[in-house]
C-alpha cells in the first residue's frame, strides 16, 4: 500500500507508535560568516523580488511560508507570482498550512511553476490534488512533523520567507507588535534555523532592536519592507467561532460532563481545546466546572482566543502555552500578559526531541472527519474521498493523556463512524473517547475509564453501537472508488508514511 519512494525520495512506512527509531544526526545548514553580511546590521533590500534573486531562486527549489495570518496571508502568492514572471519551474511549496486565500496558486500548479506542495491541501487546493492534477505527490505533515522533517533533513528548505508584523533591519522579528500583529511566529522557527536562505518581510520596520525577538536576526539573510504583510482580522477563520448549534452545544456539554465524572478535571490539571466551535464551547464549560469546584488549571494549551484569554484573566488558568493565536484578544494577551507564553512546534510537538509537552496534557479535545470502529481517525479527507483539511497539530496532540473527539454522529446524511476511515491520520490506540450527540464511546483499551464510568448516567455505548445507530438513520454509504495513482501521502509524527490518498475516480 505504501510505495517505496515518493517524489523520487525513499520513504519508510509507518511501523507503529514509538516503533521507528531514527539513527544518525540532525540536518545541518551551511556555516555562515559575518564577513558576508553588512557590519552595520542593515540587511534591507528593495523588494521581495530582489531578495528572492539574491537568495538565488532557481528551478526545483523548496520555498517555505507560514500561516500565522491564516486566511489573511498576503505573501505566499506574491512569491510565486515573481517566480512565474521569472520563468522558474518545478518549485516545491512548503507552507506550514494552506488556506482558501492560496487558491490563486492553482494556476502555478497547472503551468508547472510549482511541482507539488508539502504542507496542507485545503479547499480548492485539496480538490485539485485529489483529482490528480498536481505534478508531484502532495505531502501532508503535522506541525510537529514539519519541524521533525526539517530538523531531520527530510525537507531541505532553500528559501524561507517569513512574514513578520514587526522586524528590525537586522532581521529580528515578532508577531505581537505592529499594525498587522498576528500573535507569534512559532511555525517559522525551524525554517529560520535550518533554511539555506531566510527572508523576513515586514510592514512595520523598527530600529534595532526589535523586542521581543521571536525570530533571531542572526538566522536572517535579507529584510524587505512592504506596505502590508497580512490581514490580521482574517486569523479569525470560520472554525474559530463559538458554536450556536444546539446539537453541537449538546456534544460540548456531554464532553464536559464526561470529563467531570471521569475525574479528568482536578486542581492543577491541564487541557487543550482546539479551534473548532464545539471545542471552544467545551472550554467555556470547563471554566464553569472549575469555578463551581473552586479549582484551577495549571496550564491550557492554545490556539488561544478570547474565551481562553478570559479564563487566564479570571485566574482559572495559570498559563496559556500558545502555538497560535486565533483572534485579536489572543494577540493582545500574548503581547501583554507574561503568563501567555508563545511556543513553537519544537517545544510542543516535535517527536524527534528529548520529549515534548503534549504528553503532559490531561485532556485534549480534537476533531475528526471520520473515525472507524477501531478508533482510527481521519482529519484530512472527507468521506467523499477529497482532501479538505490539513493535519495541523492534530497528530501531535494524540499523545495527550486523555484524547477526546467530540463529533456529530453524522453530517448531513454521512455517518462519521465507519468500518474503515477513508484515510488514516491517527492510530486508534491513541484515541480514547468519542463523544457524539447520541452517545459516548470509550476505547476498550481504556479499561480504567470504562470502569470509572460504569455507573454513569451518561449515554455510554460501544463504538459499534454508535456506528449502527448512524447507519440506521442515514443508510449505509457506498464505498468510494479510487484509481491507483497516489496523489498525497500522510506522514506520521516520526516521518514515516501512515497512509496515502489516491486519485478519485470521476
Amino acid at each position: 500500500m505504501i510505495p517505496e519512494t515518493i517524489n523520487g525520495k525513499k520513504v519508510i512506512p509507518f511501523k507503529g507508535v514509538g516503533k521507528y527509531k531514527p539513527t544518525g544526526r540532525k540536518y545541518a545548514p551551511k556555516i555562515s560568516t559575518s564577513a558576508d553580511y553588512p557590519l552595520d546590521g542593515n540587511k534591507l533590500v528593495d523588494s521581495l523580488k530582489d531578495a528572492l534573486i539574491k537568495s538565488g531562486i532557481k528551478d526545483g527549489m523548496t520555498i517555505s511560508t507560514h500561516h500565522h495570518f491564516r486566511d489573511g496571508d498576503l505573501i505566499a502568492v506574491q512569491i510565486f507570482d515573481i517566480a512565474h514572471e521569472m520563468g522558474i519551474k518545478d518549485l516545491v511549496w512548503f507552507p506550514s498550512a494552506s488556506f482558501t486565500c492560496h487558491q490563486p496558486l492553482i494556476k502555478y500548479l497547472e503551468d508547472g511553476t510549482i511541482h507539488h506542495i508539502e504542507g496542507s491541501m485545503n479547499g480548492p487546493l485539496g480538490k485539485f490534488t485529489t483529482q490528480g492534477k498536481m505534478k508531484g505527490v502532495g505531502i501532508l505533515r503535522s506541525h510537529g512533523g514539519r519541524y521533525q522533517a526539517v530538523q531531520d533533513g527530510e525537507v531541505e528548505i532553500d528559501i524561507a520567507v517569513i512574514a513578520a508584523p514587526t522586524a528590525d533591519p537586522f532581521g529580528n522579528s515578532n508577531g505581537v507588535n505592529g499594525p498587522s500583529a498576528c500573535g507569534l511566529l512559532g511555525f517559522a522557527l525551524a525554517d529560520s534555523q535550518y533554511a539555506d536562505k531566510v527572508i523576513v518581510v515586514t510592514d512595520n520596520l523598527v530600529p534595532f532592536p526589535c523586542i521581543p525577538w521571536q525570530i533571531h536576526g542572526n538566522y536572517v539573510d535579507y529584510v524587505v519592507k512592504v506596505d502590508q504583510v497580512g490581514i490580521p482580522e482574517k486569523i479569525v477563520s470560520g472554525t474559530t467561532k463559538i458554536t450556536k448549534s444546539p446539537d453541537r452545544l449538546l456534544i460540548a456539554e456531554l464532553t464536559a460532563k464526561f470529563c467531570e465524572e471521569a475525574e479528568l478535571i482536578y486542581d492543577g490539571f491541564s487541557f487543550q481545546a482546539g479551534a473548532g466551535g464545539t471545542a471552544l464551547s467545551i472550554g467555556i464549560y470547563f471554566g464553569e466546572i472549575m469555578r463551581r469546584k473552586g479549582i484551577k488549571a495549571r496550564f491550557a494549551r492554545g490556539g488561544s482566543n478570547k474565551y481562553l484569554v478570559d479564563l487566564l484573566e479570571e485566574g482559572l488558568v495559570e498559563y496559556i502555552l500558545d502555538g497560535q493565536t486565533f483572534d485579536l484578544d489572543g494577540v493582545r494577551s500574548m503581547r501583554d500578559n507574561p503568563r501567555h507564553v508563545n511556543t513553537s512546534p519544537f517545544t510542543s510537538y516535535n517527536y524527534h526531541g528529548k520529549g515534548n509537552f503534549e504528553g503532559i496534557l490531561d485532556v485534549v479535545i480534537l476533531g475528526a472527519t471520520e473515525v472507524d470502529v477501531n478508533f482510527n481517525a481521519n482529519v484530512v479527507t472527507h468521506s467523499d474521498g477529497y482532501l479538505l483539511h490539513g493535519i495541523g497539530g492534530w497528530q501531535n496532540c494524540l499523545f495527550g493523556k486523555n484524547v477526546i473527539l467530540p463529533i456529530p454522529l453524522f453530517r448531513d446524511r454521512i455517518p462519521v463512524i465507519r468500518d474503515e476511515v477513508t484515510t488514516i491520520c491517527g492510530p486508534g490506540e491513541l484515541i480514547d473517547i468519542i463523544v457524539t450527540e447520541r452517545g459516548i464511546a470509550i476505547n476498550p483499551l481504556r479499561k480504567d475509564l470504562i470502569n470509572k464510568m460504569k455507573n454513569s448516567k451518561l449515554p455510554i455505548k460501544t463504538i459499534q453501537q454508535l456506528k449502527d445507530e448512524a447507519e440506521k438513520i442515514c443508510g449505509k454509504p457506498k464505498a468510494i472508488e479510487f484509481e491507483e495513482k497516489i496523489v498525497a501521502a500522510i506522514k506520521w509524527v516520526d516521518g514515516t508514511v501512515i497512509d496515502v490518498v489516491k486519485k478519485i475516480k470521476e
Partner: protein
Amino acid sequence: MSKIAETGNCGKEVRSDCKITLEITKSGGLKIEVISKVKPLFGDKIEALCRDVLKFFDIKNANLKIEDTGALDYVIAARIEAAVKILVSTDKEYLFPLIPENNSQTERETNRRSRLYLPGDSPKLALNAGIHSPDGIILDLEDSVAPAKKFETRILVRNTLRSVDFYGAERMVRINQLPLGLEDLRMVVNHNVNLILLPKCESAAQVKQVNDEIKALNKNKRKIWIMPIIESALGVINSYEIAASENVVSLAIGLEDYTADLGTQRTNEGTETFFARSQVVNSARAARVQPIDSVFSDVSDMEALKQNVLRSKALGFDGMGCIHPRQIPVIHENYAPDEKEIDKAMKIVNAFFEATEKGLGVVALGSKMIDPPVVKRAQRTIEQAIEAGKLSTDWRENYGK
C-alpha cells in the same frame, strides 16, 4: 395546463432537505437527475428511491430533478409524493414502516413541562430534536408554514411521525385553525401522533369537532390527546368548557395573539396577561388538566427565561412551550420542585411508606391525617425531583438518619 410541479427546499442555508422538480411526460420513460452533495456515497440509493416512488404512483414517463442537501429517504419520498399529488389525483400513500421506537403511547398525566416547536417543513430540525430531551416535540403545520407549503408539509409531517425517532418525547402536531385543521388531521391521525394542538381555540364545540374527527379517522383506536391553545379574549372566557372537553389533557395559552386581541403589547413582566394566565390555570385545574404556559421568545436570554419560568410556576402552570432546544434544561430545572417542596414531599411519602410497612390504612404526619390525593401529589413531586436530579432514587435509605 402546466405539468411541472416543484416541492421541497434547496439553497445555501438549507440542509437535510431536497427540492424536487417533476414533469410528467407522454413518453421516454423515467429520467432522473440527481444533484446531491452526498452523491458519491448515496447517489445510487437516491435514484433508486426516486424510481420506486414514481413506480408506486404508476408514473411511467417523467423527468424528475432532485437537488439534495443530504435529505433522508423519508424526506425525499415525501417531497416526491407531494409533487406527484400536485399533478395527479390519487389516494395512495407511499409509507415507510412505522419505526418501533414510535409505537409508544402517552398518558393523561405524562409530563408536559416543555414542548419544542419545530416548523413542519424543516426536516433538519426534526432529526435531532429528540436528543435534547423535551417532554414533547411539536411538528407545526400552522404559523410556521407558509400557506403555499401546507399541502406538502402535511405529507412530510406524516413521514416524520413514522420515521424519526424522538427518543421518548411525546409526538405532537399543531394543526391549523378549523376548518383547515380537519384536513391536517386526515394526514396525521393514523401515523401515531400522541397529541394534537388546536390553536386559537374559542369554544368547546371546536374541541368536539376535532375529537369527533379523530374518532372517525382513528383506525387503530390509539389514544390521541388534545391540547387546545387559548389565544383570544373569548377563548379565555370559555376556557373551562374547553378544558373539560373529552380527551383534553392540557390547556395551553398563547400570549402573542392574545395580547394582539386585547390591543396591547406583551411585556416581560406580563401584567397585561395576568388575568388570562390565571384564568387558564384556574380553568385547567378545575377540569383536572395540565395548565401550560406560552413560549418565551428571547432565545438568547437564559436568565430572563428562568425568571419567566419561576413566575409561571408560581402562577400554577406545569410547563411551557419552547422554540429553541437550549431552553429545555432551563425549563425543566425551574418547573421542578424547589427545596421546600421536596422536603415536604419527602415527609409525606416517608410517612406513607411507614404506614404501609406497619400495615396501617391511614397515613398520618404527627397528629395530622393525610388524604390519598395529597400522598399522590407528594409522590409526583418526588418523581419530578428525581428526574431533575435534585434527589437520588434511593433517598429513603438515608432518610431521617
